[in-house]
């Protein structure tokens, strides 16, 4: 499968002290929905800005569509669309006027009806001629996506596209990403600090922390539910640990992470009801049995077994 983005040893230092991105390498294949995960301040936005040549890397190479970015910026940007952090647009203009401007700037001459149709696709048909300053955050986000798509790009970079959206808005963006990938064959790189968002759409993903790559791979493998880490809290964790050690669950107990406060066990998610039932049968006072799905949990899970790469 051909690489759409190829990044090697990417580094960005701000001043002498702060390294925002440190020797980062990854690749995005054609047709991927590539999840770019990391906590706030992990270096996601800096990396995306370097991919868009908004920030100059201190070191490293970026190739997009097989071409070095620094020498082929204009040719590459003709095939790229992006929404970067919070949606930005001319608030003193209408949605239609904004779209018209960015259509012209992309070198695409679109007729009025085409532009109105694109606003209809993102659900803004009835507000096409209203000033953007009257729009909600969700409407601005949808307009930003329409603006990013106006040149029919092959590669779409979405930096935290669901920030500030309500649950319906988040679902809409998720469906849009899936539709872009599955129905239109676009390559999408989407960043987020929420694992739950990425795991629903990403085919491949990278997790970064403090500017370094933590893990990269196929999301099916990384989110393998047969190896889910479960956190257990009981009335007496010490006693519960001892009972589990004497049971059939002993091999799955993560002793290196288990403490008096919390017990960790790795299992296939489909065995969760059995675990719960066994604990009760053993007379353990169960307070909670929680599969770890948050990014923070996931970080704990992989940092306990992997080093930074």
């Amino acid at each position, binding site marked *: 499968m051909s690489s759409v983005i190829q990044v090697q040893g990417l580094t960005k230092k701000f001043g002498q002290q702060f390294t925002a991105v440190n020797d980062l390498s990854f690749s995005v294949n054609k047709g991927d929905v590539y999840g770019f995960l990391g906590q706030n301040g992990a270096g996601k936005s800096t990396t995306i800005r370097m991919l868009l040549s908004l920030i100059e890397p201190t070191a490293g190479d970026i190739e997009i569509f097989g071409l070095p970015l620094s020498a082929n910026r204009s040719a590459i*940007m003709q095939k790229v669309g992006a929404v970067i952090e919070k949606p930005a647009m001319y608030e003193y203009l209408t949605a239609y006027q904004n779209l018209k*401007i960015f259509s012209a700037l992309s070198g695409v001459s679109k007729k009025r009806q085409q532009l109105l149709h694109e606003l209809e696709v993102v659900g803004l048909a009835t507000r096409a001629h209203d000033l953007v300053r009257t729009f909600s955050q969700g409407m601005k986000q949808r307009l930003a996506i329409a*603006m990013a798509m106006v040149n029919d790009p092959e590669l779409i970079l979405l930096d935290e596209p669901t920030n500030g959206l309500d649950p319906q808005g988040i679902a809409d963006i998720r469906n849009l990403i899936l539709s872009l990938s599955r129905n239109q064959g676009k390559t999408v790189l989407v960043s987020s600090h929420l694992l739950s968002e990425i795991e629903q759409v990403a085919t491949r993903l990278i997790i970064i922390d403090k500017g370094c790559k933590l893990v990269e791979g196929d999301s099916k493998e990384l989110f393998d539910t047969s190896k889910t880490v479960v956190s257990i809290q009981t009335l007496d964790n010490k006693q519960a640990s001892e009972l589990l050690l004497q049971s059939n669950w002993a091999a799955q107990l993560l002793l290196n992470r288990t403490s008096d406060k919390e017990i960790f066990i790795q299992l296939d998610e489909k065995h969760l009801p059995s675990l719960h039932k066994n604990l009760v049968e053993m007379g353990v006072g169960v307070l909670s049995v929680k599969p770890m799905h948050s990014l923070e949990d996931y970080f704990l899970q992989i940092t306990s077994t992997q080093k930074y790469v």
Partner: protein
Amino acid sequence: MFSLVQVELYKIFKRPRTYIAFGAVAALIGIIQFGLKLDGKSYLDFMLNDLSSSLEIDGKILNGYLVCYVMLQLLLVHVPLLIALIAADMISGEANMGTLRLLLIKPYSRTTLLLAKFIAAIIYTLMLLVWLAILALFGSMLLFGTDDMFLLKTSYVVLLKESDVFWRYIGAFGFAALAMTTVASLGFFLSVFAENSIGPIVATMSVIVFFTILSTLNIPIFNIIKPYLFTTHMIGWKEFFDIKVNDSNEAIIGSIQNPDKIIKAALVLFVHTIGFFVATVLVFRKKDILS
């Protein structure tokens, strides 16, 4: 490039702020014309007080040409602020709105984008001066009529024949356009460093005020730098209204007393304009866009 300039002009003229400058110019000119129309005689009496005993003047002194000259003297000092309102906002305003990053991911180089923005800022500047010319010159010619132009300078008087005036205004407005373009390029340059509009606008005016003070100070130590300050040459348009005299002390129609002074002033302003733009490009090409 043409479509980029078009987009920039579209954005400029869709902003209500743009029309503040045009409104302010119209209001100021209207007030001056109204005042002179109503009480021009008192103004002339006051102006010619010292000369009335030694000089007999016939004809219509308070005519459109004189009124326009009076207005240019007053307004061309303040127009830089109106220019800075737009020029100093060209990049910083986009950074403030967050739209700069959207522009910079389009398939144009940063230099091309800057050039388009710069051309748009210059077009706005020229349009403001054309508006000023229409109201101050043509408006005054309509309201006050035309005649010979009598100018009272610091130590002498200038009398220009009616037929010898209009071309001088074309030259004066052309020169003013160059001076205001320099102001626009300064505002444009300062705009690169900020992510809000107020900073560069205030900084542009501060630089102009600071250099104007240096230009007018009569302290010998500053005389070395004065010829190189653009503010020294911003009032160069007045040179178009100084006429040469022959050996019989008669005015030579169609002449300018110091054409070299105008050329030198224009050159200094032009070099500053280019210098500011090149500096803008050099800074902006390497700038990380974090807004």
